[in-house]
């Protein structure tokens, strides 16, 4: 059973729509007791970092999720701001991040972006898969496009945590992983068949 955490932020239903179409059991989680029996967790996020952290911290679910992730090694997938929450801090706000992956969230440097559109980084961009064995990208070819919508990026302090790189004036980590903790900067729930494949893969990990 996949649990999609609804802490008051994000396009929760977009995930359940996809899992529904795959006939994969899933549940939208709004309270901690609903986490029982959950084998995979999705932490979505569309919004601002501080707002997301505050809401998650006061949702009553954080401690239970933390236990599941660290003691029971339940896989978790952070999406967009959900990925950024996994880091230590963010330039976008003052709240502390979860610190589950050693990274700091920084504003995208657009100095080398040649076109006149700068921020946010919006649209379909390619990913370079660094770790080709990674099950999350099973059946997804290098250079496939995913939908991005963000102004801040996940600056990993350890190169080995980076799963994919994407170029927007420079190469940034468009996904990262540490053990059972995964995060993607793009929106798989809005990236047509490649995104559906990724969410399917996550369900099968």
């Amino acid at each position, binding site marked *: 059973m996949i649990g999609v955490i609804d802490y008051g932020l994000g396009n929760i239903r977009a995930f359940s729509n996809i899992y529904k179409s795959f006939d994969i059991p899933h549940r939208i989680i709004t309270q901690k007791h609903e986490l029982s029996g959950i084998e995979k967790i999705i932490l979505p996020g569309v919004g601002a970092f501080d707002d997301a952290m505050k809401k998650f911290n006061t949702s009553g679910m954080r401690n239970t999720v933390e236990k599941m992730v660290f003691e029971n090694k339940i896989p978790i997938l952070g999406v967009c701001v959900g990925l950024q929450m996994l880091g230590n801090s963010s330039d976008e706000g003052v709240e502390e991040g979860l610190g589950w992956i050693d990274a700091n969230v920084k504003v995208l440097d657009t100095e080398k972006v040649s076109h006149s559109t700068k921020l946010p980084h919006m649209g379909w961009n390619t990913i370079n898969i660094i770790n080709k064995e990674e099950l999350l990208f099973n059946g997804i070819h290098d250079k496939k496009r995913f939908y991005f919508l963000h102004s801040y990026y996940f600056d990993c302090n350890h190169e080995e945590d980076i799963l994919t790189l994407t170029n927007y004036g420079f190469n940034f980590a468009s996904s990262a992983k540490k053990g059972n903790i995964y995060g993607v900067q793009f929106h798989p729930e809005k990236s*047509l068949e490649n995104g559906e494949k990724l969410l399917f893969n996550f369900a099968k990990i």
Partner: protein
Amino acid sequence: MLHPRIIPNLLIHKKGLVKTVNFKNPKYVGDPLNAVKIFNEKSVDELIVTDIDASVKGDEPDYELIEKIAMECRMPLCYGGGITNAKQAKEIFRLGVEKISISSAAINNPSIIPEIAESVGSQSVVIVLDVKKKFFSNGYDIFTHNGTKKTGLDPVKFIRKIQNTGVGEIVINSIDQDGSMKGYDYKIIDDVRETTSLPMTVLGGAGSLDDLGNLIKKYSIIGAGAGSLFVFKGKYRAVLINYPNQKEKIELIETFMV
């Protein structure tokens, strides 16, 4: 490498999908949900769906319809129509939408932009400006309420004022070009492009894939929006939902993008 976006723009009027000319004479072209399903199958880059009745009538957004539309979309969806506050925006996001467009509410009261941005993130707040050429000068006026209310505001000045208040994207919709299929109005696009580095999507006038290509050639990363082009086919404007397939789209972008 980032690609420009090619975006069908769908208008909803009396629960049906319509297409207008100069913002007038809405012609019924089908069922909105059915159209969204087809566009999803055609793997469009993004969809803009606008309820053109809501703001005029002062109605709440039609959550039931939004929910149904979002359920069909595996790509980004921008919804507009009747949004005036952060609570409504949040509810729309919860239903599976990632961008909301605001027009008249933000034009009349720009302070709602940061309010909404704070709760849903500025990257998701899209400001739509319906613009029309002035009669006796080179400038443009912003209109609201489906092109019926002249605001007296200048689009460039307005964008300069709001661009750093929590806006994620600017949509410029040309009332003069709407439904004409005679090409985009480059003058206003140039003016706006010089004013802001925010992502920008343009609407009004696209009549062929070459029109989209030429826009991409000129501005590289831009949202090339079109209504008539993706719902009509042929010179008699027979209703037919269409969109370049993946191969055609990549070819188009690679041919025109410099």
